[in-house]
């Protein structure tokens, strides 16, 4: 299946380079869901994720001529998607900080462990959506590479080898990143639930 995809992608690249719009449409249709969902797992907002996914495909279209065919097209697209998503998060954080400066509101601090979500009754079972919010918030607090590794591994179900290619590192480095990410997540969640109980 994967081999077939690679062959098709290579044909598509040739056609896109020749200016074939239909080939580009096919490439977008084929990778659209993966790209949108990857962006969504980082950004957690549907509209923003689609917007960033569009930027990903614009970059793919503009730089496909320079794409090295020894790499897998999907891996290259994943890399662009991850970088664009992280850029988007960075820009959003910068805007938020600027807004805080403007309103001289220094009460919000990134170093705070958790502010979301406030539970009415800490004793009661947490709802799935609340758990998901807590987890997403904790993942967002991780260092960049740990965040990428754990997101691609747990949400996108990519293998360590695929993540290593995207991050341009070794498989053992990815394993270490995921291990550190899990340890850090455990610590952060522990701190959060200690306050709740």
């Amino acid at each position, binding site marked *: 299946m994967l081999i077939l995809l690679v062959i098709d992608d290579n044909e598509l690249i040739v056609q896109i380079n020749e200016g074939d719009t239909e080939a580009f*449409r096919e490439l*977008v*249709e084929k990778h*659209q*869901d993966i790209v*949108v*969902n990857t962006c*969504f*797992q980082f950004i957690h907002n*549907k509209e923003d*994720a*689609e917007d960033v*996914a*569009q930027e990903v*495909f*614009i970059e793919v*279209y503009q730089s496909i001529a320079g794409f090295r065919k020894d790499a897998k097209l999907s891996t290259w697209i994943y890399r662009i998607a991850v970088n664009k998503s992280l850029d988007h998060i960075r820009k959003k954080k910068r805007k938020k900080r600027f807004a805080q400066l403007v309103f001289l509101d220094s009460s919000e601090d990134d170093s705070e462990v958790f502010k979301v979500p406030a539970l009415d009754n800490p004793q009661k079972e*947490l709802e*799935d959506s609340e*758990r*998901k919010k*807590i*987890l997403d918030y*904790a993942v967002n607090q991780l260092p960049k590479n740990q965040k990428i590794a754990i997101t691609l591994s*747990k*949400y996108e179900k990519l293998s360590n080898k695929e993540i290593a290619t995207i991050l341009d590192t070794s498989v053992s480095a990815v394993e270490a990143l995921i291990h550190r990410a*899990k340890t850090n*997540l*455990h610590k952060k*969640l*522990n701190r959060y*639930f*200690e306050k*709740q*109980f």
Partner: protein
Amino acid sequence: MDRQKRIEKEINKTLDAFDLAEKLPHNPYFFSRLQARMEEKPKEKMVFATLRPVLLASLLVINIITAISYFSSTDIVTQITSEQDPYEIFASDFNLNQTQTDLFNIE
């Protein structure tokens, strides 16, 4: 101990939420929106490409004018200072070379 067990239980349940990842449905309008955006982009670029040289040229002209006016004014200052005593210039700037009666126009 019981509290720590409960915390561990909650942590594990929260980590299991990785499997609850929401998947966005396929958007059939994605490509048409992308195409519209790609057609928009070159137009924006064209506007910027034409405006940029105009902006640069006007900035250059402003800089030249400012530089000319600045250097011509410093020439005058150096001319004056070379001819006049600096204490006199200072005194005349603050009307200190006048007497008190002059200041109140008492004649």
